[in-house]
């Protein structure tokens, strides 16, 4: 049973089966003996019916058409149904041949499409990469340090103090001023060239001092005195003189926003 099913799935429909039968007979469509074809077709239908009724439905319509043609042939010519004026052109044989020829043509066209489909699988388009113009475009940027990166960094510093001060709380005077801290930050950076973000807050005693130092840092960045860089993604932020970072960077213009300033450290 399974053997037959595989065989029938080859046919895309009753017309396909008819074309197959005609081809097997090795005759042209116009030469085919439709009476013989009808017999062969119905033999196939008999084999098919048991397995796949859904498919057989379409095949049965064709079988009935063929039976009609066959029965018509049994009558003498003069007794055959005369083509009435109103249904002119309804000769069932011609109708079937026409349908077969039409279907055959589209089947051939489908075969050509299949050839094109296979060909197209092996055709590769030219996909040029985007052309980079090094002298007009910015060099490959280091990860930019934005305000949110700085806030994240200062937040993690502040967490340290949150843990320390849980429980009892002390209230301090505002011992630190932003201007003092500006001097402090500048002094460290002038002395050491650059400093890691966390090192800047290493000596801070509490939240207020951290915030003061941070505000000083922001102020210096705003004044384009300092620049923040991140040597690689997720690395710790480093702070350096804006002028220094520019001199070590090859192409950055001095006007570049310090927050987006980059530095070539490699």
């Amino acid at each position, binding site marked *: 049973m399974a053997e037959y099913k595989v065989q029938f799935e080859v046919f*895309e*429909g*009753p*017309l*396909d089966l008819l074309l197959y039968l*005609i081809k097997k007979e090795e*005759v*042209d*469509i*116009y*030469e*085919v*003996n*439709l*009476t013989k074809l009808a017999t062969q077709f119905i033999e196939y239908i008999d084999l098919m019916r048991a397995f796949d009724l859904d498919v057989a439905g*379409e095949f049965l319509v*064709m079988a009935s058409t063929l039976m009609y*043609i*066959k029965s018509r*042939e049994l009558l003498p*010519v003069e007794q*055959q149904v005369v*083509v009435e004026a109103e249904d*002119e*052109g309804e*000769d069932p*044989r*011609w109708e079937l*041949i*026409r*349908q077969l*020829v*039409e*279907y*055959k*043509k*589209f*089947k*051939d*066209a*489908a*075969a*050509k*499409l*299949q050839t*094109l*489909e*296979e*060909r*197209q*699988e*092996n*055709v*590769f*388009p*030219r*996909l*040029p990469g*985007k*052309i980079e113009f090094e002298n007009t475009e910015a060099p490959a940027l280091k990860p930019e340090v934005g305000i949110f990166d700085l806030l994240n960094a200062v937040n993690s510093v502040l967490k340290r103090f949150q843990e320390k001060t849980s429980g009892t709380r002390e209230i301090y005077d505002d011992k630190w001023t932003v201007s003092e801290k500006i001097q402090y930050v500048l002094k460290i950076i002038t002395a050491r060239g650059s400093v890691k973000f966390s090192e800047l807050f290493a000596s801070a005693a509490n939240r207020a001092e951290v915030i003061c130092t941070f505000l000083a840092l922001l102020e210096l960045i705003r004044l384009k005195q300092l620049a923040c860089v991140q040597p690689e993604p997720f690395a710790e932020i480093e702070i350096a003189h804006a002028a220094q970072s520019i001199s070590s960077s090859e192409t950055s213009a001095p006007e570049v926003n310090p927050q987006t300033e980059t530095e070539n450290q490699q």
Partner: protein
Amino acid sequence: MELKFILEPLLFSAQKPMTAKELRDVLASAATAEDADDATKPFKKVKDDDVTAALEELAREHEIAARSFRLVCVAGAWQFVTQPEFAPWLKALVGVKNRPSRLSQAALETLAIIAYRQPVTRAEVEQVRGVNIDGTMQTILERGLVVQSGRAEVVGRPALYSTTALFLEYFGLRGLEDLPAADELRRIPIERPPAPVTVDAGLATAPPEQLQLNAKVKLPEEKTSALPSSSPAAN
């Protein structure tokens, strides 16, 4: 400078296939730039047709040169593509192309009918194929190869279907006129012969001189062109 020589490097460097209109726009913007070179000026107002003609000539030159790549037009856009015989090496270089699985025979037949007859209703396609095509239509609609393009102004206003640009791209066709034997198949002019089919004893078909269907010949164009009633409408 000849237009075709300007178009060649443009297509060589283009990030995507370019239509004649897009290329014309490039020529125009090169000529209208502030520091436009004098050489660009003659091509400021070049016509689409001239661009297309130059591209066609260029494509012919590449074909005659028989190099390993060609200039082709797919769905109206021009691009350089490799010749299929070099696929084994290209697959090693860039990997197998990311393409959906090949279409079934049923899908190809349905697509062929829609492509040549569009816009066409589902019933018309079913009539040609002699089978129900619900499942097949679903597949090719989902794959974006055909779309519903309107409704037929007949009873029930059935949906009409047409092929898409993706269809052209999938098969590497320039346009619908590029379909194999397009003129023959578009509106198949198979009509009943003027005289009724005569009965030939024992042969339940029309005599050869009335049908002249050389079915043994595989090419469909030869069959249709042999049909007497088809020749006037074949063009």
